[in-house]
């Protein structure tokens, strides 16, 4: 059972975006990599036909699913379960994969499959803002990062190249002191994704109205285009063509084109000429039918395959620690046979360096199960998400949601400001999905109408009248780190093949509740001024219903699972250093959103990917010492 040959330079656990970026950089620098992936072998097929077939399977599963939730297209494997938002119940609850101890339920999911959660991500790729990296020194809240925005800039450029971001730098007008957060003359790889019809109409309305008073201070709501990881028209002013390891300087170099060729959009994994442009399908979450949206398998395909071995259906279960050196000796993993039976084989993977890229919750769980990297007692703590308050209403005129991708515009007004001393900041994206998220529309509209005895032409008219006018937005509030929001393990709760299930403790602090309250104050004025009739309703029966100052709010998860193995200044305050190396084990690196000390108001994938480039640089440097 033991596999003792130590031929690999690095073992990577997980084939999501973090694992794939590390694998790509390392294999192309000549390092031998073994990747362990818990999901099914079919999902990683590299040949055209098998890849196409597998993706079509995902699509047909999605089309047939009654609830089109983020994980609906992807197999949920008993032996390596995924978190599913449909399992979120009032706490305590052991339904689904997570054990939710409460007092309220953690509300986000992720995908355990080749390619990870990028299979169902929305693709929003906003950078974090400079102040997001210094919340403690600037606003006296949470913690500072050991990295400044200025240090991140070049890694952001690498990540934007890897993902293939479409956007307009000139639009990126944020409520901050700096004129721009970008390097001079920087442009995104591709031009901005065309703004959806709904966003065009709403931008006009919002720009004319929406002067908001919040806590006696005046704010102006304004709209900007959202940069996103889906293909658009290449920008011929963009000259970066990749990232390469420079063994001389021991750094990653951004390489540039000699000619003005522009970025070459990366098409689907089964046909390079499919998906070269976003075609405006609105099903970005959970699945882009043409793969115009980035997913991590696009990065994995760019590995030097001669240096990469991938083992699928291989669930990491424990890190083995050398007791004298405190170095990691190996990763024990269980290979399941069928996915549904409790049969498995145990193996050990060995290498010089180990990289955990299994998602914030899985990384934390594995470290806890192994007694690793936890001298700070921070492993599993500071679990965060964007606590998301949904708001929906009916416009007077049709807005025609679903024309274009999920979200092309956001209101950045409350992404930064002095108010962060008092309550959480948020981003307010305009959504292009009608009321699908809050009410499961349009299915629920039909069910309601039919139950009222409406049918035939009257039914069609009713649906057309309502669905076309549905407006929906959501306040993604930046959750701050709280040591009591945490992932733990308990021998009572194990999965089908004897691996720990994550046990979650979760709550909303007053800092968050104040933001919920503020979101109500803002959205009331916003909807009122823009002629949106408010239909928002929060039900005390909702699993994540909270009250504050006599008012009730339901929040949802944003799928942004962050913060379970934070990066910090020293081995007492954090799990990893600013190179994402664990303080406790010199040859163990953690990548993924778990490293982020705070969350900011941007969707975390871009920042996490940028950090992963930084981690890969440190890994290569360490390997070549």
């Amino acid at each position, binding site marked *: 059972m033991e596999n003792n040959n130590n031929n690999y330079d690095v073992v990577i656990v997980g084939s999501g975006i973090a694992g794939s970026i590390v694998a790509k950089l390392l294999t192309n620098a000549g390092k031998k990599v073994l990747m362990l992936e818990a999901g099914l072998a079919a999902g990683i097929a590299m*040949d055209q036909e098998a890849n*196409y077939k597998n993706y*079509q399977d995902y699509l047909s599963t999605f089309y047939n699913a009654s609830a089109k939730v983020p994980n609906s297209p992807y197999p949920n494997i008993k032996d390596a379960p995924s978190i599913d938002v449909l399992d979120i119940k009032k706490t305590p609850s052991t339904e689904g994969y997570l054990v939710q101890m409460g007092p309220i339920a953690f509300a986000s999911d992720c995908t355990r499959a080749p390619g990870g959660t990028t299979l169902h991500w929305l693709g929003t790729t906003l950078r974090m803002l400079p102040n997001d990296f210094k919340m403690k020194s600037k606003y006296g809240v949470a913690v500072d990062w050991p990295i400044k925005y200025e240090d991140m800039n070049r890694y952001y450029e690498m990540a934007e190249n890897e993902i293939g971001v479409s956007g307009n730098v000139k639009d990126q007008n944020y409520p901050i002191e700096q004129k721009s957060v970008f390097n001079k003359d920087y442009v995104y790889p591709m*031009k901005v994704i065309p703004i959806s019809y709904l966003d065009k109409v709403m931008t006009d309305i919002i720009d004319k109205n929406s002067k908001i008073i919040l806590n006696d201070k005046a704010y102006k709501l304004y709209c900007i285009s959202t940069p996103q990881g889906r293909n658009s028209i290449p920008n011929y002013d963009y000259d970066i063509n990749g990232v390469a390891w420079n063994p001389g300087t021991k750094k990653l170099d951004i390489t540039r084109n000699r000619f003005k060729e*522009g970025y*070459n959009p990366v098409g689907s994994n089964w*046909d390079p*000429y*499919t998906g070269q*442009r976003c075609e405006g399908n609105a099903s970005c979450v959970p699945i882009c039918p043409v793969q115009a949206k980035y997913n991590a398998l696009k990065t994995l395909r760019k590995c030097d395959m001669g240096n990469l071995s991938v083992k699928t259906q291989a669930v990491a279960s424990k890190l083995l620690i050398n007791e004298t050196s405190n170095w990691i000796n190996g990763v024990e993993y269980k290979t399941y046979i069928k996915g549904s039976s409790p049969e498995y084989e145990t193996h050990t993977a060995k290498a010089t360096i180990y990289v955990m890229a299994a998602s914030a919750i899985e990384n934390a769980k594995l470290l806890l199960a192994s007694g690793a990297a936890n001298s700070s007692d921070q492993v599993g703590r500071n679990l965060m998400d964007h606590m998301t308050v949904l708001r929906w209403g009916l416009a007077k005129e049709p807005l025609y949601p679903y024309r274009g991708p999920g979200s092309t515009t956001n209101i950045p007004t409350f992404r930064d400001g002095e108010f962060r001393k008092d309550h959480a900041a948020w981003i307010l994206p305009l959504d292009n999905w009608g009321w699908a998220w809050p009410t499961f529309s349009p299915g629920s509209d039909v069910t309601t109408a039919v139950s009222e005895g409406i049918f035939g032409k009257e039914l069609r008219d009713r649906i057309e009248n309502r669905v076309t006018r549905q407006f929906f937005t959501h306040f993604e509030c930046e959750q701050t780190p709280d040591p009591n929001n945490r992932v733990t393990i308990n021998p009572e709760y194990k999965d089908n093949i004897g691996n720990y299930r994550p046990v979650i403790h979760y709550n909303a602090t007053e800092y968050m509740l104040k933001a919920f309250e503020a979101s109500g104050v803002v959205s009331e004025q916003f909807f009122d001024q823009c002629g949106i009739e408010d239909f928002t309703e929060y039900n005390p029966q909702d699993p994540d219903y909270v009250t504050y100052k006599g008012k009730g709010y339901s929040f949802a998860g944003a799928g942004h699972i962050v913060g379970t193995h934070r990066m910090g200044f020293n081995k007492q305050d954090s799990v990893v250093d600013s190179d994402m190396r664990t303080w406790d084990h010199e040859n163990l690196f953690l990548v993924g959103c778990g490293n982020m000390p705070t969350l900011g108001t941007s969707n975390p994938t871009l920042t996490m990917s940028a950090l992963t480039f930084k981690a890969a640089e440190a890994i290569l440097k360490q390997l070549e010492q």
Partner: protein
Amino acid sequence: MENNFFQKNNPNRQKLIKPLTDLDTPQEIANSIALDSLTDSDIPQEIANSIALEGNIPQLKDLPLQFKMSQKDVKNYIKDLKHLQACLRTALQLELSTIPPYLCGLYTIKDGSNVEAAALIRSVVVEEMLHMVLVSNILNAITDPKSIKKGEKLFNVKDIIPNYPTFLPGDIHPEVPPGAPPFKVHLLKFSKEALEEFSTIERPSDPNAPITKTFDSIGQFYEAIRYGLLRINKKTPGGIFKGDPKRQITPEHYYGSGGKITKVTNYEEAEEAIGEIVGQGEGIDGTIVTDHVMFGENIEYAHYFKFQEISYGRMYSANDTNFQMPVRSVPTGRPFTVSWSSVYNMKANPKMKDYKNNPELLQKAIEFNKVYVTLLNNINDAVSGDPDLLIKGIAVMYDLKYKAIELLNIPLGNGECAGPTFEYVEL
């Protein structure tokens, strides 16, 4: 395997086109002499034997029975600027005439089967549309804006739509097997016959074919256009490239294949555009540049070879090198599944008049044709001074497919099913 030889960003890529030559090869002339006395392509055995006895005349068994225009005639084919413009309009029709047969091949593949074949045909279709745009760029480049009436379009949609089965526009008559009727393009379901037809459309000129009065390949027709462009540009004071640059479609307006749009403002760029068209169609004059790997993952190669791959159910491999005409080597790369049965059994060359007794079916055929005409109008508007419109055609292309699939799902009662007719209708 890293190879960027055909990649759109390779600055040397356009140089793949062969320089214009003055003379027919000695082999071509010899072949013509040998066959001069023949009126029938089916050469009697006794003549063959007698020619074979002559010393410096090639063995007849080696003689391909393909005829092509002599180099001298190709060179002088284009008479003047007007004729050149007319030939470019013919070239537009030529490119368009190939799209419906390829689309019939593509649409009749049932969802989920023949994945590789579908991807290959799809990329060819997208490139044929690119060729239409490239030809339009050349035509716009040599059209004096002063000569364009207000609202006048580059071409006439009604006139350009061919009536299938059709000869290839431009007096192009590819080789056919002995005894077979002259080559016409038919609308066929995905089948061996269709693939043979596709390969014939895209087959390169045989370097050794004897001389006749017509073109034997699309490549030869474009060669005549190149000569015409060069000669007329030279002898016209101030040149002929007086077109409005704003009517040019630029690279950002196009995607979905390995092709590249070239903006045309002078002869060199026109040659580059033709290089793209001919190179993608039949390969670089049917020859190989031996110091480069020609096949393999992520390498762009000509339509002719893509169709060969489908016919053989095998990709070319990086080691496949011999594609000198006439092509003898078969692809030896990764095999893939080709299923001739997972296909809609579409009636060949369907017509609206076939459906006249079935009003519902006729209506669907009309609806399909309306979308087809809309798409051509869209392309015509884009190349007539509104380049940004091109990208809006994408949604129409999806619609075209959906409407075709509706037709293919209607049985005709004899085991066959209906199909898209690609005819002109008023909108």
